[in-house]
């Protein structure tokens, strides 16, 4: 049972082959991490799966349906959403409003009830705010609920973005470096959060540089280097794979050259 399947995905920017022929799959409740050195094509891969970039070839299937190159808002409606390494937050809204925006698709509005602020419309708004508040609790941001999002620290914004993504009600969640810029305690909290989300059945695709975190929570790891998949498997298997070690540390022949330089 696979919820997200990526087959032969590739993209070129001009003459540069940024990602080439990458395939893997994610099951519901599974945490799959994509790792690799800087510039390996991890974020580019995310951008293709989430409809931000148009892949040059290959396909992405969500629950068996071909969703290659669909716009992000359509993917959101089908249950795939993401967070960004460099954040995409509504800076001028409050923290709570950011999460409320995440409920955009599940709200069933009536224009007239809204315009005249009828009890039904007010009840709906109150319900959504309560639900949004619950997500803020999950990421420990309730005391900043009424603050303007632009004033929050980087680590807090990362968690806010996760809360908003959860509000969309995803079946597949792509997290691009969720722990970047967070301290050790915050990282552990995000750890726990991701594990809980996976337990609730959400398929999680993760890009993360914190190797301890990746090894601890991943069920499956995909390793990219220079845009190619060079290995995949369980955390133990991957951490012992010579190709992976070479990609991260360089091969032995290279080492003297570096030492001399």
């Amino acid at each position: 049972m696979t919820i997200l399947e990526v087959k032969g995905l590739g993209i070129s920017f001009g003459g540069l082959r940024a990602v080439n022929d990458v395939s893997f799959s994610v099951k519901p409740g599974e945490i799959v991490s994509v790792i690799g050195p800087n510039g390996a094509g991890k974020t580019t891969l995310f951008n293709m799966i989430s409809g931000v970039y148009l892949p040059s070839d290959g396909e992405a299937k969500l629950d068996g349906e071909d969703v290659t190159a669909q716009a992000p808002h359509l993917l959101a409606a089908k249950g795939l959403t993401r967070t960004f390494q460099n954040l995409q937050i509504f800076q001028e809204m409050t923290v709570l409003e950011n999460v409320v925006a995440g409920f955009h698709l599940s709200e069933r509005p009536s224009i007239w009830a809204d315009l005249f602020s009828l009890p039904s419309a007010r009840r709906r708004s109150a319900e959504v705010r309560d639900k949004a508040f619950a997500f803020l609790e999950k990421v420990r941001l309730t005391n900043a609920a009424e603050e303007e999002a632009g004033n929050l620290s980087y680590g807090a914004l990362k968690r806010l973005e996760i809360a908003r993504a959860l509000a969309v009600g995803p079946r597949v969640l792509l997290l691009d470096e969720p722990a970047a810029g967070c301290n050790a305690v915050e990282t552990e909290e995000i750890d726990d959060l991701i594990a809980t989300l996976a337990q609730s059945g959400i398929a999680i695709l993760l890009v993360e540089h914190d190797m301890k975190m990746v090894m601890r929570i991943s069920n499956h790891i995909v390793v990219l280097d220079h845009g190619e998949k060079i290995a995949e498997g369980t955390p133990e298997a991957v951490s012992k794979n010579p190709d992976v070690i070479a990609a991260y540390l360089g091969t032995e022949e290279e080492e003297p050259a570096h030492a001399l330089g």
Partner: protein
Amino acid sequence: MDALMQFIYSGLTVGAVYALVALGFTIIYNASDVVNFAQGEFVMLGGMITVFAFDAGLPLPLAALTAIVATAAIGVALNKFAIEPARGAPVVSLIIITIGASILIRGASQVIFDKQLHRLPAFSGDDPIHLLGATLLPQSLWVICGAFAIFIGLWLFFTRTLLGKAVLATANNRLAAQLVGINTGFVMTLSFALSAAIGALAGVLVTPITLVSYDVGVGLALKGFAAAMLGGMGNPKGALVGGLLLGLFEALTAGYISSQYKEAVAFVVILAVLFVMPQGLFGEKKTERV
């Protein structure tokens, strides 16, 4: 005193028109960061199409409705065929595209309609109303009330409805809006339709007072732009206040200094805003996070 009241009435009337043009600027600017210089042409089209539909025998309300719907369609077409294909281009390029579009619309109107001045009958007759020692045309009331009604309608739309909030979310961060499932393409289409419809309505309301011809749009776009700058670009409240203030400045300048300086007021306002407070009356100070 009576003269002052008279100037205020005429200032508010023309100011209400500027406010409507500025509101049109605001909507498109909010959704896309583009200042749409074809906004004045929407006003012209509203007036022109109503005049020609009315002359062709349609009753006035129906003629006005036709003009508003047709202009909204032209607004959508402008987005579809000129702005959307250039998505990703720098904002300045998009603004220049709107200037091109305004020249195209003006030229086409000259050919399709004509180069004459046209007028419409006033909606509720021409008997002046005496109020506080000065007189006011019923049509002026239509214009002023129209501007306030549109402002309140927009305010309710943006603060209360999900669709309105989706427009604001798109303005705030397009990618984030897409991530939560907002169809940002539709939001853009809606913004252009709404903005064009409001422009057209302004044209319909003001034509009985100021007359309309194919080239009234340029001046209105400039005045509306000055009003939007004065109020703070992107803020609907600013658009309304900026428009009314600009209208009052103009009328008072014409009354107490010389009507020859009237046209210069808008430019003086633009300069003053840029020198003294570039964010305008209600605009937010932009601080870039690094």
